[in-house]
């Protein structure tokens, strides 16, 4: 194994260990709650990045499948019964894979468009799913929403299983990104992002590559939606398919660095706690939104390409400077 991938594994392991330890060290429920929200956004942003970040196709509709995941779990509870406690969480991979598969025909059609058109087409998906949730009364109870059974976790650490589930999904998303980036699929996706027409002329199976990335991205997104629904135990169309959640996840990806492995997670780690802090401090007066956007604007002003790529450039430049200085010194020594 190369040194770079070993370092990557160490980084990932340290992150996972810190993530698992967190709710056992910090017991305050409200902090663990912010942790869940942070992990949820990090997982959504990382899943979004897996498709949109690597292919360059900006999708604004992923949250439709977050909602589909949430409703799928809720409907299954009501009509099939998938037990209580931890059991519903174990059903999630099926929900994710199923919603992902169901989304493929839609994706195949949407992917015939590009750039702005693709963004708008996917944006409409969001409203289509929301309207379905409103109008398929017999299934979703429309605007009155759906109750899920309250999980039977102990009251003292009620949040912990959800926290760990969200963490598992974030690690899954990160792991998928890591594997994809190192594989031929990743190379195909990057080629598509750089110049799709040229890639086609070289015989790269662009449609297949895009659909696989889409499926992986949607599967994770739908699973996150399922955990979220089980955690809140009550969902309704506006909350399950919320454009603001979508925009939040996209902003976090841009903030941290689009097309990088850790960028979306870093973006979420910065923005979600900042948002929650500002909400508790300034929530009474809507000023918190001003503060939230201020955080975002400051970072974009200082690090326009996102945190990770900008930092990487800075480190690169510093190394370059050191190297040229080293050369100059050795030359002057030779002269002396």
């Amino acid at each position, binding site marked *: 194994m190369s040194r770079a991938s070993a370092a990557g594994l160490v980084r990932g392991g340290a992150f996972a260990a810190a993530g698992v330890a967190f709710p056992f060290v910090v017991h305050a429920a409200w902090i663990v709650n912010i942790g869940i929200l942070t992990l949820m956004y990090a997982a959504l942003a990382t899943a979004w990045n897996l498709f949109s970040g690597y292919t360059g196709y900006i999708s604004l509709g992923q949250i439709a499948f977050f909602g589909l995941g949430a409703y799928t779990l809720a409907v299954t509870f009501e009509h099939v019964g998938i037990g209580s406690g931890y059991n519903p969480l174990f059903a999630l991979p099926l929900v994710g894979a199923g919603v992902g598969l169901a989304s493929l025909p839609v994706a195949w059609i949407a992917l015939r468009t590009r750039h702005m058109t693709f963004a708008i087409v996917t944006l409409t998906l969001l409203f289509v799913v929301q309207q379905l949730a409103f109008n398929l009364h017999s299934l979703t109870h429309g605007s009155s929403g759906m109750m899920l059974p309250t999980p039977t976790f102990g009251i003292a650490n009620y949040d912990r299983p959800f926290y760990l589930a969200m963490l598992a999904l974030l690690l899954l998303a990160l792991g998928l990104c890591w594997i994809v980036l190192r594989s031929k699929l990743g*190379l195909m996706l990057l080629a598509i992002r750089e110049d799709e027409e*040229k*890639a086609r*002329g070289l*015989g790269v*199976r662009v449609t297949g590559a895009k659909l696989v990335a889409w499926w992986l991205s949607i599967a994770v997104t739908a699973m996150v939606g399922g955990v979220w629904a089980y955690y809140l135990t009550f969902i309704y169309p506006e909350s399950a398919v919320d454009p603001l959640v979508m925009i939040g996840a996209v902003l976090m990806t841009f903030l941290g660095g689009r097309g990088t492995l850790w960028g979306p997670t870093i973006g979420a780690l910065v923005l979600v706690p900042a948002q929650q802090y500002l909400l508790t401090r300034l929530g009474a007066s809507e000023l918190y939104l001003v503060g939230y956007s201020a955080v975002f604007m400051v970072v974009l002003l200082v690090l326009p390409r996102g945190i990770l790529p900008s930092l990487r450039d800075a480190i690169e430049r510093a190394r370059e400077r050191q190297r040229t200085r080293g050369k100059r010194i050795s030359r002057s020594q030779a002269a002396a």
Partner: protein
Amino acid sequence: MLLEVEKLAKRFGGVTAVDACSFGVPEGSVTALVGPNGSGKTTAFNLITGYARPDSGAIRFAGASVRRPDPVRLARRGLTRTFQQARVFAGLTLVQNLVAALQQPWWAAARHAVRPHEHARALELLDEFGLAGLAEERAGNLSYGQKKLLEFATVLMGEPRLVLLDEPTAGVNPILVEQIEERIRDLNSRGLTFLVVEHNMNLVMRLCDPVVVLDHGTKLAEGRPDDVRNDPRVLDAYLGG
């Protein structure tokens, strides 16, 4: 004939870019497609490679008719192209550019992006084009001429049978022109067939046989370079009104 084009036609609104155009590319040849600006050369390229859909006409490649030309499928059958403006994957390294062009079965998508023998093959090809020293450089950092070379090298990774070069020497310095000419000759002697759109007539006359001349989207002349050069209709199209 490796490639046969029969009565190909394409209209854009009221403009007929390619009009009942027929010609062939013999196996093992370096065939030139020349003509004044706007005579439909690039459109013909786009129709043959599947980047645009013809209004009518037929294309046969390697003995089989191509019903609905599609770039991906054609590339996998051995017909590939370069673009007039050198197009490279700017954010990828030179090696990644080349390896991305390897044609893989779908189940190979899970494999490591650049495997050792693929890396070696890419280096070998870069070396032939004098780019081996830049192997790990990002393609976006290359000069225009180097990008042209890289694009040429890239299409070879898929081991094509026919390569369509769209103005391979446009905007390239004389030394690079020589290098590109040498590459074409060398690859051709090893059995690769070329169809070249080119404005540098000296190069065309030295390198290509047969030469196909287009004007207003139709074939004006086709034949050996010397015959074509002395054809009064060709002189008229280039020099006259």
